[in-house]
């Protein structure tokens, strides 16, 4: 076993342990975004495609590089964008978009009557 391989294996094992620790503390709420986020990180294979592109010399290798580059880039770009799109929507009551924008996206409830004036009416009938 060469010194380089030993270093590589060391890195691999330590990274696995870090991965276990980081993830075990994430609440279920964020599992889908998290899975998508982890999914984008393995798009780093694009880095590998760049490396093999530098040493490619035959038409077969070029073809393989082109397909691999398209796949890996779709993984990276799509992965990060879609994760961001999901997370963008997690917001607190204060930080959210206005009522107007919301009404526009729900035709069934928009454009009806003006919301009734609020006040101490009716609701205290509750048991």
């Amino acid at each position, binding site marked *: 076993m060469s010194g380089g391989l030993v270093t590589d294996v060391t890195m691999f094992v330590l990274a696995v342990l870090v991965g276990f620790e980081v993830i075990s503390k994430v609440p279920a709420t964020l599992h889908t975004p998290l899975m998508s986020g*982890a999914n984008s990180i*393995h798009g780093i294979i694009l880095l590998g495609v760049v490396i093999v592109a530098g040493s490619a010399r035959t038409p077969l290798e070029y073809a393989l590089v082109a397909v691999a580059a398209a796949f890996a880039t779709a993984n990276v770009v799509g992965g990060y964008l879609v994760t961001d799109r999901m997370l963008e929507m997690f917001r607190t009551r204060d930080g959210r978009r206005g009522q107007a924008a919301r009404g526009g996206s729900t035709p069934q409830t928009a454009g009806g009557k003006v919301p009734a004036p609020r006040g101490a009416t009716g609701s205290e009938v509750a048991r």
Partner: protein
Amino acid sequence: MSAVEQLGYLAAAVAFVLGLRLMNSPATARRGNLLSAAGMVLALAITAVRLAGNTETLTGPVVLLAGVAVGAAGGALLARRVPMTGMPQLVSLFNAVGGGAAALVAVTEYVRLAPAVGAQTTVSALLDVVIGGVTFTGSLIAAGKLQGWVTGNPVLFPGRRAVSVALVAIVVAGAVWLLITPNVPVLVVVIVAAAAFGVAMVLPIGGADMPVVISLLNAFTGTAVAMAGFVLNSVALIIAGALVGASGTILTKLMADAMNRSVVAVLVGGFGTGDAGPAAVGSADASVRSVTAEDAAIQLAYARKVIVVPGYGLAAAQAQHELSALAELLIERGVDVCYAIHPVAGRMPGHMNVLLAEANVPYPMLKEMDEVNDEFAVTDVALVVGANDVTNPAARRPGNPVSGMPILNVDAARSVIVIKRSMGHGYAGIDNELYTAPATGMLFADARSALAELTTSVRSLVG
């Protein structure tokens, strides 16, 4: 490699780890993803600069850029266009291409080196192409099942175990051959066998278990990428790949636990049956009490505390905006409203949170199962929208398909309103005892129109 480059890769690795750490909390999650993306840009920039000064031919970078352009355009388009309900299959698709790319990287390097391939490279490349090949086809089938292009039912063709065993035998035999005599055609045979195995592995698994499968395949891709790192001797690939491999494994176990399934049982297959077919209204039991939208609206409008229980049916009907509008109206009237989110509501853990977030529901209103389960007893109305098995009290008894599954204590609420199209079964394929309970009123309708009708009724009630 220079020290500067190495430190740059280290910075990228730190960004990935910290990014995942920040994704622990909804408040910092978005920043975490951006940090992770920044690490990715840094790692790629360093590698690209190195390539620019050290390339065999100009054609390599040119075809690389062409591929990057196509992939970036396609990925961005899909990421922006696909509706939130289609998110799980999109993640699966991105996972498939990632696994495919990992396999192709090893193939390219192998083709370049052949026939002078060392044993260490051969082993790494073999692991990479086998895992990557299985992931590529497996993830495509999983995405197809969720999208409805491939049947969600378990496909149990005769002799499937024999086929799987034969495919494994081909892979092993090919691997031995390659260790003795490196050559490209045998590597291709191994890849084809691995890809066929991916199909054979996922086809027999039911649609309900797909989230677990996708998560597992996500971990596979991470591992394949780490193996590609061994082939190319790239520390960045090894660290990032191992990180994803470990995180995906943990996530897979969490998902399986929440569904009361073991990962092994999922892979053996034969439980989930996909989406339930519609059954005739009220056919299951004569004691089902049906309510009108007006009745339900009165109950909701005059309740003190309402817990909403959303399920996959809500997502399928794309009714999250209507639900949010109804909840807003009730809150305006002073009703205490929150959402009870079962760990597997929607199509995978956290999916329902995303759908509700899209409809502008503030996340503090979403409560997880353990947090909310005791509150049902002091709740006037539990509004169940398109959720089924996760509310079935039968889970508390042994001897049926949902036994032991953690459920929401919806039956403890004083009154229950269930919005559902029919008495059809959920994934578990059994009757839901909640529907026939005396406190339960069934509102048979499409979730979207029913919720809009409820909102209108509540409005007219309060004037």
